[in-house]
Each structure stands twice: as structure tokens, then as C-alpha cells.
């Protein structure tokens, strides 16, 4: 029996000593969502250089987008710091700020910095008059079309309006050029909300008003959902879109199974990569079309949705100064210049001669980024979006009429927001 106790004690001691590990003083933990252009290895490269320059060790953790919210929120609620810096999706700004999960950065951000970042981008991270993250990645949706299919169908160029696009799709379907001309990422996830937001924009409105109240059940919001349902009913949209996430929608397009799609900037790269794409040369990128009724309303006659990502500091971080140094470094113009696969957030970089020569489509991107609509900036955003996704999806599945679905969604959202 004694032997048994000794064994147990030794094991216990080993475990205790191994399990409570201390954090070194100059070390920061970063959680980053594995995303489009900045691949884990690239972010690691950036961090390596930062370690060289500053002597601060950087531990990186990459998670899927879907998981990041829970991961950050649970760490933010815990009194123990697990991360210092995290990538903040713009939709979390209101929630994180109102619950005090992250630190306001107004004391750190200089006026010169503010002057060089377009208000459309910076505003995404402002809540309650304070800025909660440094813009890091300017992601947004663009229009992708297959010019060969358009020409085969007897048209000269990409559609300028949604109505024109429908006309082209009907022609394609009639001629048997492609079975389902439209594909998208309409599965019941955040992507669906994004698609819905830009389409609502394309019909001339927003999903929520300036005071953060839902208004999507009438006018543009309703038209947008009716448009989506119509695409499915007419057999223009691939029914598979209902289960597609963004890469799946991209795969449809680059396999030549769709003539049109909307997607984030990352699709441009894979579309032109002969190793994976069957539509190199035919696949083109342009501005998302709007309804003919709203022509002239927007400067570039286009509507898109923002998917900006900022870098923010968790409120329970013990190394806020080191965290800020790192944050300032990875969002700096110098780093962004080196990774032009992603749209830089700095105006000076966007318009630099270097960027113009490196990225031939930066002009389109700049126009589209000026056309973005934001998703609602409300504290219970995850719940709001979840309700919206659920009802939109029900309408797309044909289980509810668009108007009824949106009315119910609005009622539930108002209950959640306490309106």
C-alpha cells in the first residue's frame, strides 16, 4: 500500500509542476483566424521578423473562422490571460467593446495613422465613440464572371445590373451552356448574412438603420431575399449553394460549373492559378452589380459587403505594451506592402505606384471597397446573425415565404436586443 501511495504522490507532483507553467515576461500569445491571403506561414514569417527586431517572443495560434469567436470570448471572460492579441472581425466590435473584452486603442493611434486609413475601414472598428482595433485586413466581396460563357450566350460583356445578369443567365440556361449559372455560399453560417447584406445594398438599402434597429423586412431587404429565392426557383442558382461555404462556392466557379458568383477577394488568386482552376483566362473579376432601380445611387453603381479584420488587444492581457508593439508592426504599411495579395488598408499603400504595378486589379478593388455595406453593429451580433441566417435559410429552402421569414426574424431579433 505504501508503494502505491508513493507512486501516486510522485505522479501528482509531476502533474502539478508540469501543468502550472508560467508565462515569460516578454512573450505574447496571438490568436489569428486562418484566413484568405495571409496564410499561417506568412503570419509566422511576419512574427519571426518582429521577434528579431523587438526581442519579444510571439506565440501564434490559428483557428478556423467559425471557432474564433468562442475561443476569444471564453478567454476574454476568464481572468487568466491566454491571448494578448487577437484578430477581431468587425462584427464583434460592438459586442466586445460593450462587454469590455478588449482595450480601446484611441491613446495609441496617432492622428497621422488615422489620416492614412479610409474612414470606411476605420469606422468598422469604432463603437461608442472609441476605436477598438487596428485595421489589419480589408476583405470584401467582389463579382466574378465567366466571360467565355457570357460570350457563348451571345452577350458582349458582364452585366451592369442584376436584371441584366438574370437575362444573361436565362440565355445560358436555355442554350445549355451551364446547368446552374449562379453559385454562392448560402449555407447557414455567417457567409449567408454577408451575401444578404450586399444584396440588400444592391437593392438600395441596409439591413439595419443608423440606430441599430432592424429594417430588413420591407423594401430592399425583402427584395434581396425574394431575388435569392427567385434564382433558386428558376433554376438559375445551384441548389448546392444552400450548403456551400465560401471555398465550396469558389470551387464551383473555378471548376467551370457557374457563370457568376460573388465571393471574397481570395477567389481572385485561385481563379488564376492553373494548378486548381479550369477557368484561367475566362474567369474575370469585376464590380458587383446593383438593381437597375438604384443605378446612380452609389458612386460606382455597385454594392458589396465588408469583411474587415482588425487586430485588437484583450483586456486581460498582462503585456499590453508588447502587444501594442506587435499589433502596430503587423498592421504597418511596410508589412502590408510586402503582402500585396491582400488589399492593403493604408491609402498611401493602395495608391502607391508600387502597388499599382504589383496588383493590376487594385483599381477595381479600391472602387469596390468604397461600395461596401457593413453588417449591423449591435452588441448581441452573434445571436442577431444566427436568427437572420436561420430565417433566410428557411426561405431559401422554400419552407417559408420571404416576407413571413423576415418578419419573424425581425420580431426575434427585437426580442433579443430588447427593443
Amino acid at each position: 500500500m505504501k508503494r502505491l501511495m508513493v507512486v501516486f504522490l510522485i505522479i501528482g507532483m509531476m502533474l502539478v509542476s508540469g501543468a502550472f507553467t508560467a508565462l515569460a515576461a516578454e512573450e505574447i500569445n496571438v490568436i489569428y483566424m486562418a484566413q484568405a491571403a495571409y496564410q499561417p506561414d506568412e503570419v509566422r514569417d511576419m512574427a519571426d521578423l518582429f521577434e528579431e527586431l523587438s526581442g519579444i517572443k510571439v506565440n501564434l495560434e490559428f483557428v478556423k473562422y467559425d471557432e474564433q469567436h468562442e475561443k476569444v470570448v471564453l478567454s476574454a471572460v476568464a481572468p487568466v490571460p491566454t491571448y494578448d492579441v487577437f484578430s477581431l472581425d468587425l462584427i464583434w466590435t460592438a459586442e466586445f467593446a460593450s462587454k469590455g473584452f478588449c482595450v480601446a486603442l484611441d491613446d495609441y493611434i496617432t492622428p497621422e495613422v488615422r489620416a492614412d486609413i479610409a474612414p470606411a475601414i476605420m469606422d468598422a472598428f469604432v463603437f461608442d465613440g472609441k476605436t477598438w482595433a487596428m485595421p489589419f485586413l480589408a476583405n470584401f466581396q467582389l463579382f466574378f464572371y465567366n466571360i467565355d460563357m457570357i460570350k457563348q450566350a451571345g452577350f458582349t460583356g458582364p452585366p451592369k445590373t442584376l436584371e441584366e445578369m438574370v437575362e444573361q443567365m436565362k440565355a445560358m440556361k436555355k442554350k445549355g451552356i451551364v446547368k446552374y449559372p449562379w453559385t454562392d455560399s448560402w449555407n447557414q453560417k455567417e457567409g449567408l448574412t454577408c451575401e444578404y447584406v450586399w444584396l440588400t445594398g444592391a437593392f438600395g438599402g441596409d439591413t439595419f438603420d443608423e440606430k441599430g434597429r432592424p429594417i430588413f423586412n420591407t423594401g430592399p431587404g425583402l427584395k434581396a431575399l425574394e431575388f435569392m429565392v427567385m434564382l433558386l426557383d428558376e433554376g438559375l442558382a445551384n441548389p448546392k449553394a444552400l450548403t456551400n461555404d465560401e471555398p465550396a462556392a469558389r470551387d464551383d466557379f473555378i471548376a467551370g460549373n457557374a457563370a457568376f458568383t460573388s465571393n471574397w477577394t481570395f477567389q481572385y488568386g485561385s481563379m488564376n492559378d492553373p494548378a486548381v482552376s479550369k477557368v484561367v483566362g475566362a474567369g474575370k473579376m469585376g464590380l458587383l452589380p446593383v438593381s437597375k432601380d438604384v443605378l446612380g445611387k452609389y458612386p460606382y453603381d455597385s454594392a458589396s459587403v465588408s469583411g474587415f479584420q482588425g487586430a485588437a488587444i484583450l483586456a486581460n492581457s498582462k503585456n499590453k505594451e508588447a502587444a501594442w508593439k506587435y499589433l502596430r508592426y503587423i498592421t504597418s504599411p511596410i508589412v502590408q506592402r510586402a503582402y500585396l495579395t491582400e488589399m492593403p488598408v493604408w491609402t498611401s499603400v493602395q495608391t502607391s505606384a508600387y502597388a499599382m504595378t504589383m496588383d493590376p486589379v487594385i483599381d477595381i478593388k479600391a472602387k469596390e471597397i468604397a461600395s461596401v455595406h457593413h453588417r449591423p453593429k449591435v452588441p448581441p451580433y452573434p445571436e442577431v446573425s444566427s436568427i437572420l441566417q436561420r430565417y433566410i435559410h428557411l426561405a431559401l429552402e422554400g419552407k417559408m415565404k420571404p416576407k413571413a421569414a423576415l418578419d419573424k426574424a425581425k420580431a426575434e431579433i427585437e426580442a433579443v436586443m430588447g427593443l
Partner: protein
Amino acid sequence: MGIRKSKVRKYVSRVILYGLVIIIVIWTLAPFSWLFISGLFPYKELLSDRTTSWFPENPTLKNFQAMFDMSSHIGQRFVYALRNSLIVAGSVTVICLIFGTLAAYALARLKFPFKNSIVMSLIAIRMLPTIALVIPFFVIIRTLDYYLIQVNANFNFYNTKINLIILYIAFILGFVIWIMRGFFLTIPRELEEAARIDGCTRLQALWKIILPLSAPGLVATGIFTFLLAWDEFVLALVFTKTTNAITLPVYIVSLGSQYIHAYDQIAASGFIAALPPVILALLFQKFLIKGLMAGGVKG
């Protein structure tokens, strides 16, 4: 004529039997084999049309090697996750076996009040869904940590292996006690009594007579415990965040991203993660099946 007929019938039933057996074998082995084969594909070939591409043209071990490449992010995290999983599952197994055996002995052999209610509540606890306890755990650990870090900045439970170990033990211990008790009950009392007449104390009898006799049971229970701890996902998902504590299930789920389906990494890491439990199960299959019957558990 009659003899030939029955011969034909026997032949046909043999053919049907082997047909069914083959179907069962394919059904059981095919998915896991496919996971392994997928791990041998270079990424480009992995995404080709399956009607023609079932085996890699240029098979490679690169995907598996990448998991142990400490210079890459993927590899580094995998190695840490593997290490954490081994530590957590190993400690849980050892501690559960020690505490569980002692308690099971008491419940199998000793007379004392409330014995039956203890046995019954052990079963009831085993039925509790982890998910029902995640929220209170989270709030309690959060509060505990709040005071702990005021005592010492480096003391906390969140995102540590010790936290996982404690939680897992609590969930698995009831099961271990239950199943060990079943094994002890099968050992004839006379053996123990003979030992006690020879001058052994109860614990000496447990150590010298009962434990060696129930070795197969101990092995089986140990493997069950290891598997349960190796397999656990919800608690690890909520309570582990960095390489300090993440376990393999959390790692495997985190692979891929919004834009990349990392099926090559999933196949390779999934296969490696499956190896320890699968090998253990196959090595000790005889004990396991007995144990499964005794405990009738583990889903």
C-alpha cells in the same frame, strides 16, 4: 437426388455467408482505409475526380512527416497536442485506476450503510451529459482563477492540463469503479478468506490476491479509461486554448479554415491520432471484449 440437393443448398448458403462476411469486412475497413490512403495523396491529387483517382499516382509520406515538423506551425502544434493528449490520458488512466480500484473493492466486498445508493448514484453520474456541466464548470473555474491569480500570478486552472485531468477523472471515475466492482464480484470470496486466515490484512489480500486475479479486468478498464480521455472533446474545446494544453481532438477540429479544406492534414493527423487507441484495442482485444460484457458500456 436428395443428397445432391442438400449439398447444393449447403454450397449456396456458404456462398451467401462469405458474401455477407465480405460485405461486413469492407464496410468496417473501407472508411478508415480511405483515411489512410488520403493521407498518402499529395494535396493536388487529393482534389481530383474520385471516379478515376482512388490511389495517389505519386504517393508521399510528406503529409505524415509534416505533422512532426517542429519548424512549421502545423507540426509544432500537432506535437504539442499529441504530448498533451498523452499526458492527460495517461495521468487520468493511472489516477482513475488507483482510486477506482480502492473504491470498487470497498463496494464489492465490505459491508457498510448506503452501499446500494452509492452504487446507483455512480451509474446515474456516468449518464450525465458533459454538456450539462460545461457552463457551471466554466463559471466556477473562472471564479477560482480570479482568486488564484491574486495569490500567485502563475497559478490558474484555465488552459492547463491539470484542469482537464481533474475534470476527466471526475467524469470517468464512476465508470471505473462500476466496472472494477463487477470484476471483483466475479472473484470467489474463498480465495480472499484463505489469504486472511494466513495472516493478511484486507488490503494485503487486495494487493496480493484480488488484483493479480483481476489483472485482465484492470487492463481492460485501463484501456477504456485511456480511450475515454483520449476521445473527449467538449471540455477540451472549452478549457484549452493554446499549445500549453490543447489535446488532439481540439487540434484536429481546428484544422482547415474558412477558405482551405485541409483534408491532407486532417487525414494524416486523424490517422496518427487514431493509432494509439486502435493499437491498444487490437492488442488487448480479448480482455476488452470481456470487459465490455462486464461493464456493457462505452459508446
